[in-house]
């Protein structure tokens, strides 16, 4: 099979994981107008909780479910007891707190699990590769594509097809209006923040068998998540999807075309999109 087709298929696999990593950041910004610099740390602890649960004997499927939920609950507590008290402060306070939280979580991971990385094996059923002619793809990566695709559909349905989604969308336009309708906007904020963290935690748990876990994975994930949301447009669900896929495919294709520049081209793609559409592919002008 043509190498470029192989790379596009591979890029879709990478891109769907990037989407899941970034979509929470985007949704949280869409509703709260709050840029969460601790989003990468939620990805980090999602991966480590998954690892720890596996070490404690919980099977992979349960850890995939439980680890993101723990991250979601943790984020809900952080939002409820700290973040909501700083929303009204200038942006640099938001940055200061969330960067600080990310550093605390990273150091906590190092203190508990040590500075070295660890490996997580996929379950037996997902080990090995699928071969279609000359197309070889790890079963686990196919599983990740399937899970992220299902998550994309669920999130889309929640945001577009449910009452909660309607409130979230209305809240992103005007929180005052939603409050005047008698809805508890604080609770919605908490819920959305927890949902955003949960998706990052799930991305971490899914990524762990692919790239292992190490204490510094949150920082690199945050960088990628920002690139994806800037390309797609801050606050846009479809933007996160398009941005994730674009970044994944660019990275994978460039591995063949100009391998030494593959990582750099992610940022070149971002710069190109910003030049052509400063608000991102699906972003709204402010």
């Amino acid at each position, binding site marked *: 099979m043509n*190498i470029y087709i192989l790379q596009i298929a591979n890029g879709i696999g990478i891109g769907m994981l990037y989407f899941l990593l970034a979509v929470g950041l985007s949704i949280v910004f869409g509703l709260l107008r709050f840029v969460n610099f601790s989003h990468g740390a939620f990805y980090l602890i999602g991966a480590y909780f998954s690892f720890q649960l596996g070490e404690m004997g919980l099977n992979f499927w349960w850890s995939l479910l439980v680890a993101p939920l723990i991250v979601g609950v943790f984020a809900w507590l952080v939002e409820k007891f700290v973040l909501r008290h700083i929303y009204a402060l200038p942006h640099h306070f938001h940055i200061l707190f969330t960067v600080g939280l990310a550093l605390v979580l990273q150091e906590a991971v190092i203190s508990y699990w*040590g*500075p070295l990385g660890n490996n997580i094996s996929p379950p037996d059923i997902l080990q090995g590769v699928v071969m279609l002619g000359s197309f070889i793809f790890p079963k686990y990566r196919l599983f990740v594509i399937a899970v992220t695709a299902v998550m994309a559909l669920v999130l889309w349905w929640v945001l577009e097809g449910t009452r909660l989604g309607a409130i979230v969308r209305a809240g992103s336009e005007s929180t005052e209006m939603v409050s005047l309708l008698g809805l508890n906007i604080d609770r919605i904020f908490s819920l959305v923040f927890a949902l955003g963290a949960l998706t990052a935690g799930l991305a971490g748990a899914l990524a762990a068998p692919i*790239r*292992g876990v190490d204490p510094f994975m949150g920082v690199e994930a945050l960088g990628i998540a920002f690139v994806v949301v800037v390309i797609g447009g801050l606050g846009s669900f479809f933007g996160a999807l398009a941005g994730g896929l674009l970044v994944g495919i660019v990275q994978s294709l460039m591995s063949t075309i100009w391998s030494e520049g593959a990582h750099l081209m992610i940022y070149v793609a971002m710069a190109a999109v910003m030049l052509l559409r400063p608000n991102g592919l699906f972003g709204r002008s402010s």
Partner: protein
Amino acid sequence: MIKRRDFLKLSALATPGALTFGNVFAQSDAIKFGCPVPMSGAFAANGKYADMGMKLVLQKYGKVLGKNLTYTTIDTEGKPATAVRKLQEAVDQGTHFFAGGILSSESLAMGKEAEKTKSIFITTAGADEITGSECNAATFRWSVPTFGAIAQTVRPLLEKLPKAKRWYTITPQYVFGDGLLNAAKDVFKEKGIEHVGNSYHSLAEKEFSGYLTNAMAAKPDVLLLLNFGSQASDALRQAVSFGMKNNMTILMAWASGLEQFEALGPDICDGVYFGAQYWHAIDSPFNKEFVSFVNSSLKIDPNYSFAGSYICTKIVLDAIIKANSTDPKAVIAAMEGVKYEGLTGVEEIRKGDHQVIKNYYLLKGKAKSKMRNKNDFADIVSFGKSFLPLDKTMCKMT
């Protein structure tokens, strides 16, 4: 996984006062060491263990020439410019002895700065240039350079696999990666090996599936990984997930030792070949003593980053004692040409380029069922010393 209590115990070494029990603060004439290593970013795990290695050896020596030993951790972030700036700051505060610089790019930069500031810098980084075209009087290197690492891994593997004629390489694009790649190409040419492709990648890369797809399309007999640290781990882990271990032999030319095996686990390492500067099971008198000391002090087996930092600092300490002086010029003279019992057997610092002449090892990962203890991840397949003759290193010591 490191046990939480063990790690906290190790981390406790870092607390102020742990080193010299408080009286260090009163000593303005203490002998000051610096440990410039990446403590954050992709290579931070290596840096953190190197930091522990320096602390332990300084603790062991206690005092030298009647003076306390102090030390500062310098987070280079793996960036040459940051490393140089922080090294300058340390020199301004009276530090003139440095052991560290895990990455070649930062080591090259710090070596130049050490010479400018009349200090001593000893490193474990790999680029040939460090003791080659960019050598200087202030810089020493304990580790085998890229030339020797390739000679002691690619050549013995070719002898074991004479039918492996097609090799693919994955290389980080910086001075260390290019050093390994050029050395490998020379061996390929000499042995009639077909180099079916190379994928360069940046130092920030974590996702290797694209490069592995290129490699699979080239259908090599051997996949030669020329990257280092967590990048090498990521590349290997992803190669195994693509089933490449079943279709080809995988060789990682420069493994970062025990810490890497612990991070990867035996299932991934089984059957893979690794080049190593150090392995805790090396059968040499000083290594046995060292492993026993670390076992009793910290309840761990020493890994490469730890051991490299320990021995580099020890070499400088012994030279200070031999010179009976802390004048860097006298210490350099005491280091040059010295032969000593080292971790890899008898080691010697070559005067002409300040390169330590020592063994490099080829390991083979073993199955979990064959491990005799939790750190028995690999067998030593072969080892030996390979260095360019002095007149071919391009080192012109000033």
